[in-house]
């Protein structure tokens, strides 16, 4: 059993005869509560259209799953490579014009990629947080003492945006400090940022006013002043 909560443990104790089983007699109170809740709810009637607009923007679903088996020790390298390809596949989610900026939180997709900076990364090159090699020649300036900085690429798919900024602890949360640049198509925005090892909280700000976390990245815990943030973890490089 995978659930580990007080009720599951109590149920296990009942199963082992260590506690009283409960009766399942029908209950007027429960029936009354359930009746009240069973009334149909109404959501926005355009929801189906919005869902289909998002689906239409997706690439066709893969006809064969890329990875059906868990990676054994011998596969570790190739599994990391496959994971890297999966992370890199662009998720083009259209932002609904109907809800204006309201739908952005649900529609934006992010790819965070850490690019290796030196030779010798072997099979582990490209995976998001795996320790990477020492900096390549010409980047000595990035090494601050023992904390080798890593370049992280932030990408946002936001075809309707006019401008996209990245804010986080690495730029003092200044909205103007780090602008993403659009790709030629204008659908994707990206920026490369050197980050010190450790955890960094960040968010995007679209068109100067809409704060967005990254739906695909872990949510940053703790207080967030009402607009959630995401976390990227950077591990230091391996010295060669």
């Amino acid at each position, binding site marked *: 059993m995978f659930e580990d909560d007080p009720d599951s443990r109590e149920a296990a104790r009942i199963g082992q005869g260590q506690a009283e089983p409960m009766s399942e007699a029908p209950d007027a109170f429960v029936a009354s509560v359930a009746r009240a809740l069973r009334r149909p709810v109404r959501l926005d009637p355009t929801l189906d259209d919005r869902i*289909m607009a998002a689906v239409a923007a997706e690439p066709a679903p893969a006809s064969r799953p890329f990875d059906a088996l868990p990676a054994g020790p011998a596969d570790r390298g190739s599994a990391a490579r496959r994971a890297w390809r999966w992370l890199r596949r662009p998720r083009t989610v259209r932002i609904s014009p109907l809800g204006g900026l309201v739908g952005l939180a649900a529609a934006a997709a992010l790819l965070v990629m850490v690019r290796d900076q030196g030779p010798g990364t072997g099979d582990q090159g490209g995976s998001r947080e795996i320790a990477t090699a020492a900096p390549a020649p010409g980047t000595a300036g990035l090494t601050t003492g023992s904390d080798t900085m890593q370049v992280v690429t932030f990408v946002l798919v936001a075809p309707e945006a006019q401008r996209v900024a990245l804010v986080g602890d690495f730029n003092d949360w200044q909205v103007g400090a780090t602008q993403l640049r659009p790709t030629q198509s204008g659908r994707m925005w990206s920026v490369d940022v050197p980050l010190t090892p450790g955890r960094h909280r960040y968010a995007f700000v679209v068109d100067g006013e809409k704060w967005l976390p990254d739906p695909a990245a872990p949510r940053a815990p703790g207080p967030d002043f009402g607009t959630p943030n995401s976390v990227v973890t950077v591990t230091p490089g391996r010295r060669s």
Partner: protein
Amino acid sequence: METADDLLVQRALEGDTAAFGVLVRRYRERYQRFAVYMLGSEEDAEEALQDAFLRAYRSLARCEEPARFGAWLYRILVNRCRTHGGRRGRRERTFVRDPAALLTAREEHPAEQAAWREEIEVALARLDPLQREAFLLKHVEELSYEEMAELTGAGVSALKMRVKRACDRLRELLREVERV
């Protein structure tokens, strides 16, 4: 006679997006009530539903029993609601607007019905999420324990325990209100 799920899934995998649209229309209304009461807000429910359908679409090839697409989708939705509920916490719960209820309620003690439902929603929001989930699936969506076990991955006895706890707690929270 409506087209079977597995046929629609197959067509969608071949690139027929409209086939997936049929699945969306088929299941969105069926599952939205659970999402609304689980998350306590229509906006959150819309987000969770959209997210669930998108994830289902992206990993459609991994649906092992296309004939039971609905159950597989439901599982994704339950998962999305758990993640979503975990992130927002309880501080942003809003009440569910239900113009339909207000309409029918006019025929039978309108103000009382509306107030009763609001109290239930408040009490629901105060339940432990796993208990709320089990209560909604069992008593509002009327699934069997076996079906719930498949959706949630929990054992039947654990689910029964959660439902019982939820009922006890709701009884406690709604005790002052005389309604039967």
